[in-house]
């Protein structure tokens, strides 16, 4: 069988790249190391362009838009529930802090405006700051104009907020620990940083991108499963593929267990950049190989499932009662230990109850399930966790690893120094938490 292209990885980005290539008439094979599709929900904004281009609307795609979008226990009992309706959220906040309630609508508006800038940046390859090409310069100028038209406040907010810590941003606005805790959690989401680390305000906005105004949790969907069912590409599961390259040009892949080689002039890898490129070091210039080796992709999240009968009434339960709580959870991880009191979020989607636990750095995880169970007031055997050795985003979204610096500076256009080898996973721009965006950008760059 002859293929025009091989895509490594059948996650959302890999499949999106594969389907865009297939739509352009290429014969595409997708190779996935896991034998079966991951049943867990995809967390993140699905760009409308992906849904439109791949006609996902009629393919069984479900996007969960829970209302209220978050529930957080209050120290004195009861819960704070925030809704998609800003007025209702404002009323809920008023019960714990009238001052915060007064600021909520304006906060939501300002954050939405900033997230809008990111959305515009994310659906195209990152700006090429080294370019002298007129089209590229026009594009960068267009972006500048767009931001300018959003008003002086947005320009100031962008410059001021992006490098800020989420704690400083939230302390600027609010007084309630519970509110700041549940918002601050989004700032450290998948990062090995605490809410007082610089750049966490950016991470907060990154994860707000694609969400409606006043909703600070990414959408949950079954996009990977929906993509898996789309016809047009061949998917081989249960085989880990490594890229083959000779004299600086990709020639195909080799399957790790069987040793079978499959040739193709084009290989797109949605696997982490480091895992894709490190075995090819002999084909790479050392400066590039070192930059790839130094990508920060530290695992800090354990995901898993919670067995609850009957399923809980809430859709998303957030245990991050204050910014101090989050910072302390991070303190443990900073020294290589699991958080004594981790940030825990429970998400109910399609009858599955999933749990996100942070911070869980690589190592031994003695008593972790017990601690999570205690926090959630369930039995330990109801909690099943899989700590991730590496960042699930294939590279943390810190300020030094975004835009034209993702995956490594100078190589943000999905290409690699190896002719015919492209990267299309969340290790590339715009990064994790936006299923299909990197895959789409990469495919458009390839075509």
């Amino acid at each position, binding site marked *: 069988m002859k293929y025009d292209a091989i895509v490594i990885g059948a996650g959302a980005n890999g499949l999106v790249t594969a389907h865009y290539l297939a739509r352009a008439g290429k014969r595409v094979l997708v190779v996935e190391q896991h034998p079966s599709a991951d049943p867990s929900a995809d967390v993140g904004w699905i760009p409308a362009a992906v849904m439109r281009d791949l006609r996902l609307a009629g393919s069984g795609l479900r996007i969960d838009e829970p209302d209220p979008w978050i529930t957080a226990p209050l120290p004195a009992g009861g819960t704070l529930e925030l809704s998609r309706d800003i007025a209702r959220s404002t009323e809920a906040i008023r019960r714990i802090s009238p001052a915060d309630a007064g600021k909520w609508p304006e906060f939501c508006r300002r954050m939405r405006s900033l997230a809008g800038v990111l959305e515009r940046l994310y659906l195209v390859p990152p700006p090429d700051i080294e370019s002298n090409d007129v089209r590229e310069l026009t594009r960068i100028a267009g972006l500048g104009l767009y931001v300018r038209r959003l008003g002086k406040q947005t320009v100031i907010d962008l410059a001021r907020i992006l490098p800020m810590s989420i704690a400083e941003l939230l302390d600027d606005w609010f007084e309630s620990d519970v509110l700041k805790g549940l918002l601050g959690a989004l700032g450290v989401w998948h990062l090995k940083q605490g809410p007082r680390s610089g750049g966490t305000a950016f991470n907060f906005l990154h994860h707000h991108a694609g969400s409606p105004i006043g909703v600070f949790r990414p959408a949950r969907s079954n996009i990977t499963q929906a993509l898996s069912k789309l016809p047009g590409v061949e998917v081989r599961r249960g085989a880990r593929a490594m890229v083959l390259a000779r004299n*600086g040009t990709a020639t195909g892949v080799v399957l790790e267990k069987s040793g079978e080689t499959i040739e193709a002039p084009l290989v797109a890898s949605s696997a982490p950049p480091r895992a894709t490129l490190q*075995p090819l*070091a*002999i084909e790479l210039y050392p400066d590039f*190989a070192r930059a790839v*080796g130094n990508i920060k992709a530290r695992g800090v999240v354990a995901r898993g499932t919670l067995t609850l009968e009957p399923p809980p009434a809430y859709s998303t339960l957030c245990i991050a009662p204050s910014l101090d709580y989050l910072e302390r959870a991070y303190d443990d991880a900073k020294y290589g230990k699991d958080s004594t009191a981790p940030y825990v979020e429970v998400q109910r989607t399609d009858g599955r109850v999933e749990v996100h636990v942070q911070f869980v750095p690589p190592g031994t995880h003695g008593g972790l399930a017990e601690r999570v169970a205690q926090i959630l007031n369930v039995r330990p055997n109801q909690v099943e966790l899989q700590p991730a050795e590496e960042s699930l985003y294939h590279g943390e979204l810190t300020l030094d690893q975004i835009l034209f610096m993702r995956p490594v500076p100078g190589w943000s256009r999905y290409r690699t120094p190896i002719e015919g080898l492209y990267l299309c996973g969340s290790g590339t721009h715009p990064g994790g938490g936006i299923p299909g965006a990197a895959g789409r950008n990469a495919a458009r760059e390839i075509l």
Partner: protein
Amino acid sequence: MSLRTTPFHPRTGPLSEGQAWRRWAGYVVASAYELSHDREYHAIRNSAALFDVSPLYKYLVTGRDAARLLDHVVTRNVGKAKVGQVLYTPWCDNEGKQIDDGTISVLGEQTFRMTSADPTLRWLHLNSSGLDVTIQDVSETTAAVSLQGPSSREILQLAAERDLSALKYFRLTSAKIRGIPVTISRTGYTGDLGFEVWVDASQAVPLWDALIETGTPYGITPAGMLALDVARIEAGLLLIEVDYFSSRHALIEAQKSSPLELGLGWTVATDKARYNGQAALDAERTRGPAWQFTGLTVDWDSLEQLYAEVGLPPRLPSQAWRTSVPIYDRSGNKQLGYATSGGWSPLLKRYMALAHLGSEHAPGTEVRMELTVEHRRKQAQAHVTPLPFFNPERKRA
């Protein structure tokens, strides 16, 4: 921290009549042992000169992927080299600009010794990711002398008690000199018949003594860097930080050179797997390098006339110079390039220079070289001359 002395210093130190030492890679080596380097120079061309070249950086690269690593770094095809071969080779950055040059000795199927002018350990390590290879810095534990000149083979044959006539140019062999295990390579930096002898640093002094004793009837002469400098210009051999700048140390792009611009096109393999700078060098080869590294001969009559104008006989540099000197076209108005080394060849009776010129200036082209006559800038007529200036048959014999 003071400069270090080499393992031969117990012998070379007392020989120095004028305490004229030069710094080389953190060591001191003799500029000249006598007060003038003339006799040392003539030993290179007429008998045999013995140089202490221990300050060279030396790395032992071993393991299954040793050849792959070196092939990834350098421009020559190491994989194709046979055991016992020595390769002279440059190595480049990703843009095909030269980082350094040195030699690779193939000591065994999986054992190589690389020499370099600049420290290279980190670079080798950076290039070795994923490879099964061990890199050892043996700079301090391996000492080396270079025995150069028409009598060098006879001296070494006597010292090693074996026939070395089969040891061809750029080949090596292991041997024993008075029981001391050594590696002898048919290499050098003089363009003459010559050898380099590699030895464990602990055996350096007895080796020196053995060579001096054996060589004295043949006129063996310890020689320093001043004599070597004249010989290497005659031989057209370039010197880092003098004739070119490592792309590592260049401050601007214009200070970098590619091997193709340095007359080292023959070292850039076209038949090997991906190596650093390959794409850039392939492209440069296709479009043709912008610069060439060539010889210049300064015309005697022109020199004589310039000095006659001020009432002096021609004056010649007493040592090789290593400064940048502008080269102009025959009208003297347009600069064509610059010379980086030059000096008088006592053997050839010729004022020679090594120069960077645009690649369009063919041998024989008349140019002008700037020089100072009695404090005034003048231009002497010169001609583009192919390198090397001196290329005796015995070099390769």
